[in-house]
């Protein structure tokens, strides 16, 4: 690979302002619709096998009636030092030059080492073939593959939208900028708690927000260097 074009590659990152998150779960619904994420069902969910590329964690603080509810959307953190990557024996998960933690479904042999090594539990295994009751399979997104049985799946930062945005920027003969790429969760967030963009570009919104005093990363102490940055909630 050449040095120069890679240096210019965008580095995708997301900033989530927890002060704005109302826990409405619109992002979860949008993600399911966009990425053909199957509905595991009640029985499977009870076994801890529910599939949600993004989930909204809920924390209750204090005693009734002084209860504070805090929400936190958690998806694949696209760690720069991802614990899932070195454990894959077949290189099905790897780090792309755009800072994405990519999952190649064709390569995956289903060892599930990656999910076991992920501190954020954001990887999901297809124990069964995905089934889409009539007529829901007609609503599948043609831009995204439907994962087969025996492979691991996870948030891709809506790579299909990233490719589309990059293509658009290329057609217009410019670099990617804010607004070119919006993953489904970011697009659907009613309070605009999430923003997505190129953190390598100092003018981008994510780059600006990541320098905020409230910025922190999930389980930073593990040294995974996540690409999702949370802006802490004020008291």
């Amino acid at each position, binding site marked *: *690979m*050449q040095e120069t074009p890679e240096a210019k590659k965008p580095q995708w990152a997301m900033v989530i302002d927890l002060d704005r998150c109302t826990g409405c779960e619109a992002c979860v619904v949008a993600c399911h619709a966009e990425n053909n994420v199957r509905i595991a069902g009640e029985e499977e969910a009870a076994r801890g096998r529910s599939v949600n590329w993004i989930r909204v964690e809920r924390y209750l603080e204090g005693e009734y009636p002084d209860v504070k509810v805090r929400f936190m959307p958690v998806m694949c953190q696209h760690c720069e030092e991802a614990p899932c990557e070195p454990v894959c024996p077949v290189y099905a998960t*790897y780090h*792309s*030059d*755009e800072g*994405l933690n*990519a999952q*190649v*479904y*064709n*390569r995956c042999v289903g060892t599930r080492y990656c999910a076991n090594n992920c501190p954020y539990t954001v990887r999901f295994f297809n124990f069964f073939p995905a089934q889409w009751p009539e007529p829901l399979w007609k609503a599948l997104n043609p*831009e*995204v*593959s439907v994962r*087969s049985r025996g492979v691991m799946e996870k948030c*891709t930062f809506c*790579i*299909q939208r990233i*490719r589309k945005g990059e*293509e658009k920027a*290329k057609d217009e003969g410019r670099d990617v900028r804010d607004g070119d790429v919006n993953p489904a969760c970011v697009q659907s967030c009613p309070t605009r708690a999430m923003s997505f963009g190129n953190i390598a570009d100092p003018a981008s919104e994510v780059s600006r927000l990541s320098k905020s005093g409230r910025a922190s990363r999930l389980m930073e102490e593990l040294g995974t260097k996540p690409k999702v940055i949370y802006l802490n909630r004020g008291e």
Partner: protein
Amino acid sequence: MRSWKVISVLIAVAIVSVIFLSGVIGKPYEPVQPIAFDHWLHTSKQPDPNQSDTDPAPQLKCEDCHEHADKSRYATIPNVSKCMQCHETMKTDRPEVQKLAAIAARSEQPAWARVYWIDKSADVFFTHKPHIRAGVDCAVCHGPVDQMHRVRREVDHSMGWCIECHRQKKVSVDCSICHR
């Protein structure tokens, strides 16, 4: 009993070798099309100056009919109305053109047999647009279609073949460029 085994093995070997030698295996895929559309006739045929009125040579370019190749994921097979733009008046005496006209009159499309495709299980999201814009000739991936009377699958679209070209052209070989 032993001789029976030997004979049956010999027969099996004979059948397999006959199949191989007859050329059934390894012959390029060449489906029969509902209308015997001749690519050579429409693209490469040279006009005969003496018979230019009765035997025209349209000399079309690929993108004249597959007009979305540089704009979208699919090169697209033209709508039958595109064929009828010319064949409303041209060569209406030919049986194949009459078949086409009959399909157009019913507002239907010919059920063209696909020659190249990617299996859905491959999870490949190929897009024509960037390849055309990068100046890749159609023949690189589709073979000399302009010399074919009936289209054959002359190029093997395997992943190794894609990667080889991507490496030569120094474009990304990141998995997630195609697989997602």
